[in-house]
C-alpha cells in the first residue's frame, strides 16, 4: 500500500470509528430513557437494559479514543494534541472539528463522573449525566460537519436513522404519559 493509501485507510478507519461511536451513543441514549421509564425489554430484562446502556456508552467512548488517536496519526487530518482540548484551533474545518473537541471534552467528564459515581452520590451523578443530552447533538453535528462523506447516501441514511430514533425517544421522555418509577408508577410485577 502506498503512503497515501495508508493515509486513506487511516482516515476511513478514524471516520468509521467515529461513526460507530455515534451509533453506540445513540443506542445508549435510547436505552438510558428506557431504563428511566422502568420498562423491561424482552429477553434481557431491566438488568439488560442498564448493562447494555453502560456497555454501549463505554464502547462508544473507546471508539472515540480510537477515532481521535487514528486521526492524530493521520497527516491528512492535520490534528494536533492541543485540538483535543481547546476547540476551534484546528487546521482542518476548525468550526466543525471544534464541536468535536467540545464533545470529546464533555465525554471525558461524563466518563469520569460515571466511574466515580459511588463517591459522588446519586444526585451529583444525575445532574452531570444530564449533559449527555448535550453530548449527543454535539457528536452528530461534528459528524455532519467534518465528514468528507457527508453527502454519501449511506452516511445520510445513518444520520437520519440516528436522529429519528433519538427524537422519538426524547419525545416519549417528555410526554406526560411517560411512566415514572417509584411512586408515580402503576403497580407492577417483575417478570
Amino acid at each position, binding site marked *: 500500500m502506498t503512503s497515501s493509501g495508508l493515509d486513506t485507510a487511516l482516515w476511513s478507519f478514524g471516520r468509521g470509528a467515529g461513526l460507530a461511536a455515534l451509533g453506540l451513543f445513540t443506542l445508549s441514549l435510547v436505552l438510558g430513557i428506557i*431504563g428511566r421509564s422502568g420498562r423491561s425489554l424482552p429477553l434481557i430484562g431491566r438488568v439488560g437494559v*442498564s448493562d447494555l446502556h453502560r456497555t454501549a456508552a463505554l464502547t462508544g467512548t473507546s471508539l472515540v479514543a480510537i477515532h481521535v488517536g487514528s486521526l492524530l496519526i493521520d497527516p491528512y487530518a492535520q490534528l494536533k494534541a492541543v485540538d483535543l482540548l481547546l476547540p476551534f484551533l484546528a487546521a482542518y474545518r476548525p468550526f466543525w472539528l471544534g464541536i468535536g473537541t467540545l464533545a470529546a471534552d464533555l465525554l471525558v467528564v461524563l466518563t469520569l463522573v460515571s466511574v466515580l459515581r459511588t463517591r459522588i452520590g446519586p444526585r451529583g451523578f444525575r445532574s452531570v449525566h444530564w449533559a449527555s443530552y448535550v453530548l449527543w447533538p454535539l457528536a452528530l453535528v461534528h459528524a455532519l460537519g467534518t465528514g468528507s462523506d457527508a453527502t454519501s447516501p449511506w452516511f445520510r441514511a445513518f444520520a437520519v436513522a440516528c436522529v429519528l430514533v433519538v427524537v422519538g425517544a426524547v419525545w416519549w421522555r417528555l410526554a406526560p404519559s411517560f411512566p415514572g418509577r*417509584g411512586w408515580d408508577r402503576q403497580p*407492577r410485577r*417483575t417478570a
Partner: protein
Amino acid sequence: MHATGADTTMSTRLHIDWTRCDGHGSCVELLPDVFTTDDFGFPMPLSHEKEPVIPVRSRVAAGHAVRSCPVMALKVVGRV
C-alpha cells in the same frame, strides 16, 4: 464442624437505602431468591428482614445488582 450450605458465621447482607430506591427493579430480576416485588413495585425481601442475607450462590448476582442499581441504593454489608 463442617461447612453447610448456610454458613451463618459469615452472613453478607444487602442494605437498601430506601431514600434512594425508586423501584427500578434490577435487583429483583437478579436476585429472585432474595427479593420479590411489593404492591407498589418496590423490592421486598422474601425473608421479611430489614437487611436480607445473600445466599452464597447469589453473591456474584448481588454484586451485579449493587452495580446495576441506577440510583445506587444497594450496598453489601457484613463480612464477606
